């Protein structure tokens, strides 16, 4: 077959090593662009089944578009410890840490996971390219930074049946693998690394492999996982799950300081609910001074979960003769939050939670209004007209099943 026009999605966008399979499975042919890759929005015509696979079965997601870097050398630990806000010195071989990293002003650049692959070798994942930032800060240190984004393919297997499926395939049992730890194992004769991590807030794993093995791993998972309900899952379902898990998304819930343009667009980890990940007792790290000062005076903003109260929401719709309209998918439109006449915050992503039967959102709120149970007004559009409806500040994660962290007895 020949094309007159050589430019197609396949020539203009990056294709994951799983594309040969995912492209054929994608019934809806709905794709999003994720870091220049074609990534399935959803595989089926509606995303509901994929969402419920995350929460009740096992969802398989291609997460190859994540940026990945390998830091290797005698100074690797020292380097990362200086780069990120968490304490990498206590990160043991086989352990994974979620962490933000900041600029000198203590404003967040990106967030991701740091995997300690060996004493002197780490992998760091990120939402955006970070090679230059890593290189710049590696100056004078004995280590190498290499872009692992294309040299490692990755899948996420998330949901209550994920462990059962992996135990059938992997050469060693994952029963003792704890939350945020990883292990090297084999699928038959294919070497893979498996970390107990994910972006869903459920029991789940991420599988890291050589791209040449990608299709074999995919086929194996789908075949062995079928009796356990394994379901190829797209970003639409993932977006609902990650909001339920209270996990932030760069460019949606915050803007990287690198392209914030104006000061007010920047956020510190304290303002993003990541204060727990800032280890001020560490000797020195990028942004420490600014973060210590901010911690001392208290952050100006906080990042919170809100629940939009049902009865009032329903009343708004009843008044116009409609049953309550709930968003069928997660939304990403900044939505104002008021206290009285004053706007005191804005929600950045929200969703109807099918598992909790609650309408939830993640929001930036001025610190004095961020206390749990504070009632604010959420702006709601009912038949094109703006209404205010009560929303309450609640704890995140909204959804936090015990299985996320537990190991079988």
């Amino acid at each position, binding site marked *: 077959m020949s094309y007159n026009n050589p430019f197609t999605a396949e020539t203009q966008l990056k294709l994951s090593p799983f594309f040969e399979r995912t492209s054929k499975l994608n019934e809806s042919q709905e794709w999003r662009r994720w870091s220049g890759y074609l990534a399935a929005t959803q595989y089926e015509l509606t995303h509901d089944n994929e969402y419920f696979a995350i929460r009740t079965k096992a969802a398989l997601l291609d997460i190859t578009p994540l940026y990945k870097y390998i830091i290797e050398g005698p100074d690797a630990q020292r380097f990362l410890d200086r780069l990120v806000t968490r304490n990498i010195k206590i990160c043991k071989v086989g352990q994974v840490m979620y962490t933000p990293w900041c600029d000198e002003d203590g404003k967040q650049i990106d967030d991701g996971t740091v995997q300690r692959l060996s004493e002197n070798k780490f992998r760091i994942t990120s939402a955006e390219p970070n090679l230059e930032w890593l290189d710049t800060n590696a100056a004078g240190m004995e280590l190498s930074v290499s872009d692992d984004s294309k040299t490692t393919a990755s899948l996420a297997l998330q949901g209550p049946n994920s462990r059962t499926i992996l135990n059938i395939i992997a050469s060693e049992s994952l029963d003792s693998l704890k939350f945020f730890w990883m292990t090297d194992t084999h699928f038959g004769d294919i070497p893979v690394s498996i970390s107990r991590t994910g972006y869903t807030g459920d029991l789940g794993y991420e599988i890291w492999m050589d791209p040449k093995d990608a299709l074999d791993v995919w086929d194996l998972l789908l075949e062995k996982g079928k009796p356990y309900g394994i379901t190829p899952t797209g970003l639409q379902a993932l977006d609902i799950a990650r909001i339920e898990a209270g996990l932030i998304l760069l460019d949606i819930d915050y803007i990287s300081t690198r392209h914030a343009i104006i000061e007010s667009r920047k956020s510190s980890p304290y303002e993003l609910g990541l204060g727990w990940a800032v280890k001020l007792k560490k000797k020195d790290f990028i942004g420490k001074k600014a973060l210590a000062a901010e911690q001392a005076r208290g952050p100006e903003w906080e990042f919170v979960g809100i629940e939009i109260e049902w009865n009032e929401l329903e009343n708004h719709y009843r008044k116009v003769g409609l049953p309550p309209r709930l968003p069928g998918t997660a939304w990403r439109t900044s939505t104002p939050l008021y206290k009285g006449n004053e706007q005191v915050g804005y929600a950045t992503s929200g969703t109807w939670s099918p598992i909790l*039967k609650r309408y939830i959102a993640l929001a930036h709120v001025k610190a004095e209004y961020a206390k749990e149970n504070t009632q604010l007004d959420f702006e709601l559009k009912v038949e094109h007209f703006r209404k205010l409806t009560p929303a309450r500040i609640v704890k995140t994660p909204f959804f936090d099943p015990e299985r996320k962290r537990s190991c079988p007895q």
Partner: protein
Amino acid sequence: MSTVNKYDAIVIGGGHNGLTAAAYLSRAGKKVLVLERRYILGGAAVTEEIYPGFKFSVCSYVVSLMKPNVMRELMLPKFGLELLPLESTFTPLDNDYLLRTADADQTYREIARHSRKDAETYMRFGPAMGQIGMAVRPILETVAPNAIRPSLSDMGAMKKLLDHFKSLSSEQFEYLTKLMTMSSADFLDEWFEFEPLKASMSASGIIGTFMGPRSPGSAYVMLHHYMGDIDGAFRAWGFQRGGTGAVSMAIARSAEHFGADIMTEASVEKVIVKNGRAVGVALENGDEYCSDIVISGLDPKLTFLKMVDESDLPSDFVTDIKNFRIRGSSGKVNLALDALPNFTCLPGDGHHLRGAISISPSYDHLERAYDDAKYGNFSQEPYMDIILPSVIDPDMAPPGKHVMSCFVQYAPYDIKGGWNDQKREAFGDVVINTIARYAPNIKDIILHRQVLTPADLESIFGLTEGNIFHGELSLQQLFTMRPAVKWADYTTPIKNYYQCGSGTHPGGGITGSPGEMAAKKILGIWS
């Protein structure tokens, strides 16, 4: 076991409505005891491992219209309510099929394959029914007023409903009148032309009732089933993970969270009535429990003709209850399967196995099935509503194996010569043969078969005459007449004796609604 024998309220029957009432009363601070006759909670909403490794939603198999406010107020998601989507309806035909899915474009194309006109009408039909649903909903959510001797609050309720009816558009009023009086077949004929589509849609008008699609009144039952759609993303309709028993368990955990005591294998023999007041219950084992009030979650026949003495009730009321129509019309066949059924018209695995499979090729098929029942036989080619729970929730069966739930109609309770083991197996054979007509491999993949006749539904679940709704959803048995005029507001002629089962307004299905409204009514009287 509790050592305290004095409760504020005792609920007879740990079915989902009894548990709901118990949860609401406990939530209001009352000391509540639930007494369940069986070893397991849930009543007809129960999951049991009848065959090792295979979980059956033995009786009730889908959650139809679980009330959103009940889910919220009892925090059911926290206690295990997980409703999975059940979105397609697949009607296999001899050489073709009809498949309706959650995707509007796909459904349009599929119906248009058979009738372009119907495909377009179908797009209008959903919203129209939604509008009617909105019109009917306030009735379903109102405690039925006593229209004969109305109290002040009854007058208020009636005024509110009157105002509501005045607010309906003439179109809504027209549809409502038609739905209340017509047969589902006549009603659907006004909209559609493709027979298998009409027959499949009309089927929801006969479920659980002793009527055919051409019987007047069946249109209302169809509307009753449509109500779930208006909740949209809230999804009051679906398949409960772990089977319908998990819904009951979620409500039970909620009730316990609020402080209720729940006992199984505690069979109530009689409500203790002193001076026209219920004061407690006596169990079959001789134990007695005292309470301020007693609430029955059983059907009206058991509630009034078995749990209490007729002499404690007004004779006209006893006549009403005796006349209450509760004829069982359906059976249930649960199968443990070694593999998936393979439909000749659409072979292999696919989305069509993830929803309802409706054996309803034509009105004639349904009506003939009804004819058999009218004359005291089970249908030779029954109507069936089938689901494969293990396709939606793989934990229902061992890996790679499946469970199949077949709701079968008609199987009359009053069968010629009465039900016996031989007839039960013959009925099971007819069901398998009917499925085999569309999926011939069924006979080779059955590992175990559980056949439940109306007589079994009565003896196992205490459903009088095997009626799954605790009494037919026919017009003369709804709202202010359910189960009897003057006693449709959850009260009974016996003081401190209340009712909260599906035999009360707004009727059957896993809704939690009778239990909720009964509890709220009781709390209103209490305060």
